[in-house]
């Protein structure tokens, strides 16, 4: 009798919990085409804070991208304005959402997509080593989109710049050095490491979105022995050839002159500030020479950019 009473209690408790979670799932249901809603909202707030139609180049991608390209340095050296819309572990579904928002207030001439994110899950499915959590996230939106609580009531904490103390236009400055000593990693081969179907689908959507807004899409691979290989280079090359998109692989560009003993922050995964300066200079020059970008340095309307450069002096951007 006691056992059956306890058994009913246990079943009752779990049933109650199930009903509550299902109910909450209705409240937490949302646009399923965004994975990391908070990073997307944060980046949207940042780009929305920029004056309308002032950005000429948009960089997208994951941490490889925001560690490698410094818009303030490009502005200093070449005069054009750019913004890094990369976020940590960015998926292409989020890239698309960020770009879609960006085109509402900006008219960039070029969208540069860093390719490391092509080898992530591109859709918004949950990825978790915990198979129960993965299952629950798939079937109950409250698990998948639980961090939307930050957006309830419109968000009571100001977003924008929250990832950065200083306004580096999306670039994240990293000064630490852990050398990479693994030697050559771009070993020539004909093998290509294909993307997932979702990646192809989102690449096509992003290309179409850029075309609709008269922006040129180009792909770039930043130097990274930990993440990049010739097989990946081949797959990207195949796609860009088929779609007539420009592609620069900095892993094969000797002019970038990366010294893996000093230019990486974490043993060949990301570039540090020294490496970023080299990658930024190369990309700045490439973009300036290949696209009709404007030199805004003497334009009084862009005084805010001059102020940003002055404010960043502490970090020796000019070195």
């Amino acid at each position, binding site marked *: 009798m*006691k*056992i059956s009473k*306890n058994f009913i209690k246990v079943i009752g*408790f779990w049933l*109650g*919990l199930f009903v*509550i*979670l299902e109910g*909450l799932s209705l409240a937490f249901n949302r646009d399923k085409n965004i*994975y*990391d*809603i*908070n*990073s997307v909202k*944060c980046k949207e707030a940042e780009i929305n804070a920029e004056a309308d139609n002032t950005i000429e180049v948009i960089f997208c991608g994951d941490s490889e991208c925001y560690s490698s390209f410094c818009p303030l340095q490009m502005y200093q050296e070449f005069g054009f304005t750019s913004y890094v819309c990369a976020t*940590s572990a960015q998926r292409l579904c989020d890239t698309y959402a960020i770009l879609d928002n960006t085109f509402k207030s900006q008219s960039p001439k070029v969208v540069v997509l860093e390719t490391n994110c092509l080898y992530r899950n591109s859709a918004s499915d*949950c990825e*978790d*080593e*915990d*198979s*129960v*959590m993965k299952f*629950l*996230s798939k079937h109950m939106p*409250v*698990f*998948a989109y*639980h*961090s939307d*609580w*930050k957006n309830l009531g419109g968000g009571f*904490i*100001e*977003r924008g710049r*929250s*990832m*950065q*103390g*200083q306004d580096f236009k999306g670039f*994240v*400055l*990293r*000064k*630490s050095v852990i050398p990479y000593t693994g030697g050559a990693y771009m070993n020539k081969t004909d093998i290509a490491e294909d993307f997932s179907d979702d990646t192809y689908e989102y690449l096509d959507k992003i290309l179409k979105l850029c075309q609709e807004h008269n922006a040129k899409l180009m792909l770039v691979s930043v130097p990274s022995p930990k993440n990049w290989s010739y097989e990946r280079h081949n797959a990207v090359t195949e796609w860009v050839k088929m779609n007539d998109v420009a592609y620069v692989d900095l892993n094969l560009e000797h002019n970038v002159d990366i010294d893996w003993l000093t230019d990486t*922050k*974490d043993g060949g995964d990301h570039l540090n500030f020294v490496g970023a300066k080299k990658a930024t200079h190369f990309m700045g020059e490439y973009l300036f020479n290949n696209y009709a970008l404007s030199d805004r340095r003497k334009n009084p309307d862009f005084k805010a950019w001059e102020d940003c450069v002055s404010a960043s002096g502490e970090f020796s951007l000019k070195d």
Partner: protein
Amino acid sequence: MSYHLLTYSLIFLPAVMLLYQLAPEKYRWSVLLAADYVFFWMISKKLIICLLASTVITYVTGRVLGFVTESGKVKGKKLTARKRIILACGICLTLGLLIVYKYLRVFGISLIAPIGISYYTLQTISYMMDVYRCTIKAEKKFAKTALYLSFFPQLMEGPISRFSDVAEALYSGKQIEFENLVFGYQRIIWGLFKKMLIADRIAPMVGKVFNSYESYAGSAIAIGVICFTIQLYMEFSGCMDIVIGSGQIFGVKLPENFRQPFFAKSASDFWRRWHITLGAWLKDYVFYPVSLAKPVKKIGKKVKGIWGINVSKFVAPTIALFFVWLSNGIWHGAGWTYLFYGMYYFVIIFLENILENPAAKLMERMKLSQEGMPVKLLRGIKLFFIVNIGEMFFRAPTLSQGFGMLGRMLTSFNLSALFETNFGVDGYDIILAVVCFAIVMVVDVLHEKGISIRQRIASQRLAVRWGFWYAAILCIVIFGAYGAGYTVVDMIYAAY
């Protein structure tokens, strides 16, 4: 598989419970043992052979020690000498496995260690020494020894239990009681709260500061260090809640590993409240044997002859204390930071010991009460610095980076820079972490006063009880640091 994953608490644990409950009482131990080895296999695969080897060594050593003692063929000093040799062989073999997997990296040989080797090796030693000391009888059943060494909830991070405390409960095969089931799962929920709402939420802040401290002002480094101390406490004590809760379900009372450490009065008191079972193990198997060793006694006598009893009374405890902290440091890993961490606490506790009487006299002269607010406040501030500086060196990638962080905190603190710092977490996460940490501290205050919250809740009406636990679960589901934008962090102490 790890304790903080739902796969553990919602699939593995219930599956073991079901099989355990369905099995006849006299075979329930075999369900637990099978679960232990399946659990180990899921994490360390072929290295299960190491666990098995340690178990065999421990069992055989215990049996031989028991046989030599009980046979009565040799007695007196000869018996002691023979037992010592047997014990030394047993300890050398199990310790040898630990050294091979954990410390050969000093010589550039890096092997993947079996999960929990540091914990179960200490249990093998405690078992063998207890049999040697005749505080327990050598276990005749191999399965019982194996169960004691491999009980799955405590395999990854302890607590380091004693054979006499848990073996009987593990082997008895008592049925799962409803109250134990409910209380066990409640404790697991509390552990997940600490891990998922606090520890994993502040982990990115800690990682950023410790991995590139050069980019941060001293004030930001200080915040990173404090956050690491909080992260470590939340994570390790949270894991212990899950572990002890799991044990409770099967009627096994595992020892507590934390007792409100931030309410300690001194560094030594802190270590009686933090990782309690490691401290107790070191006290029983390092401190006492060293302080009672003949060479140490001889040194004490010599010192007494030269400087008198007031100095000599510190000799044996200090030498033993040195070995305790040396062992503590080395146990954590093969790195200068761990060695420094051990020696850091040795120096501090040594100073506390020798200054205890002069400080008490000084306070008496100044008419200050030990329990007065000014003394409590000063004590709290002192402990705050001791603990956080210790944890800073413990977490720093290298010793020189630890000193670099300390130097930066002392030379360029720059409080205003704090508001310009990017810690990699947003304002919501910071607010939530602060609120949740405050909740844990309130619970700690209540525990310190001897108030059991679970008992209080259990005495309420069903609607209140269920409402409370639903709220706790929903807090974890909604505010937990998992999924998009977060990284689930592996258990820190599982790496030691």
